[in-house]
């Protein structure tokens, strides 16, 4: 069964962020969500993740799905090392698996450094690895490659693509090429209301 969003509405006070938004998100595929800033992309993800209450409409098909996410912010535990941040959400992964993943994104050298000592790009990659290595049925990616330089971004996108194949992914991005590079099956565009 697909995930069906029907006439979803959300307002913050007098500001209407989403108005009667409907979409069908196919399972096992990547769906891109695009819109200018302030059009409710993150709000939509937050509603789907269960972090916000919706004002109207329904969402079906999310029940029982295990979630994983790269938030707009890195949301790392500052005192924990890069490896420990990953292990925090996926304790069943062996240290070796985690080290291999970190090495794949050129983070092996800082695996044991506390997150607070990592650069912005390193932190972003750790946040992404954490999301990719978790056991999940649906993955939310909110501008996951923000802050990465062009070269690193290409490597990280390739790595991500390899690991999300056949998974349900919702990608919020401003960059159509990014969505295409991740093999987006469809692009949902949020409109002005």
């Amino acid at each position: 069964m697909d995930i069906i969003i029907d006439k979803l509405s959300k307002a913050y006070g007098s500001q209407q962020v989403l108005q009667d938004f409907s979409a069908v998100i196919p399972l096992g595929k990547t769906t891109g969500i695009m819109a200018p800033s302030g059009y409710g992309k993150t709000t939509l993800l937050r509603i789907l993740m269960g972090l916000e209450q919706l004002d109207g409409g329904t969402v079906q098909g999310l029940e029982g799905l295990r979630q994983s996410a790269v938030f707009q912010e890195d949301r790392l535990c500052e005192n924990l090392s890069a490896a420990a941040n990953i292990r925090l959400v996926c304790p069943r992964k062996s240290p070796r698996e985690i080290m291999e993943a970190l090495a794949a994104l050129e983070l092996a050298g800082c695996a044991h450094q506390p997150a607070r000592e990592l650069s912005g790009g390193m932190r972003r990659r750790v946040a992404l690895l954490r999301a990719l290595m978790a056991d999940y049925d649906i993955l939310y990616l909110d501008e996951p490659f923000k802050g990465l330089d062009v070269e690193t971004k290409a490597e990280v996108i390739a790595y991500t693509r390899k690991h999300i194949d056949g998974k349900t992914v919702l990608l919020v991005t401003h960059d159509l090429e990014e969505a295409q590079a991740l093999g987006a099956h469809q692009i949902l565009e949020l409109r002005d209301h």
Partner: protein
Amino acid sequence: MSSITAAKGSGQIPTPIKFWAVVVWLAVWQAVSMALGQEILLVSPVSVVIRTGKLALEAEFWQTILFSFSRIAGGFFLAAILGTIMAALAAGFRRVEELLAPLVLTIKSIPVASFIILVLIWVSSRNLSMLISFLMVFPVIYTNVLSGICNTDPQLLEMAQVFELPASRRIRYIYVSQVLPYFRAACSLALGLCWKAGVAAEVIGIPDGSMGEKLYSAKIYLDTPDLFAWTLVIVLVSLAFERLFLALLDRIVARLERM
């Protein structure tokens, strides 16, 4: 009594104590003492050190320290544990917070001398300092740990919710590191408070074999060298306890956070 929160970001860092400044003040003390020429009015620092050294050679000296230390530190540990548990409960259940608010405010507002006299009616003077130490420490720990829990980064809590982290992991890796600065700052303040209040309680209650009793005796017999010597001992013991406890706390947390 005051409550504090962990310093975050801005704020002036206090200047560390410089050795030369200590030497200057000791020299001033020595000079004034020599100028007065009466040790009963102001004993010299040299005499204090000599007297402390002599006291340290007596077995009774160590028994006295042990007596006061066990009670004051006992009261501190009890309050630290209970304050943390109650703060966790208050953070989880609004009714608990509402129930405890008047109690904590009352304990904070009542002068320590009133408490000491009141408590002397209830318990024997031997355990007075433990209860007073507990009463001084509990509100500080409770208030600060509760602040720490309430100020835990909501973004990390959302992350934990999305990844469905079990409660044990949330507590160990999110709450502990977020609340620790508050708990540590509270302990640092409370450790000073509990020694001052605990010894004051002993001076009023005069339990046999306590540091407070020694101070009281020094006052009665106008034994100024003893008064200063015991004061020095109290300061040293409380400082050593504070340093040791905070160092131990840091090590425990570092071990907890290691995965």
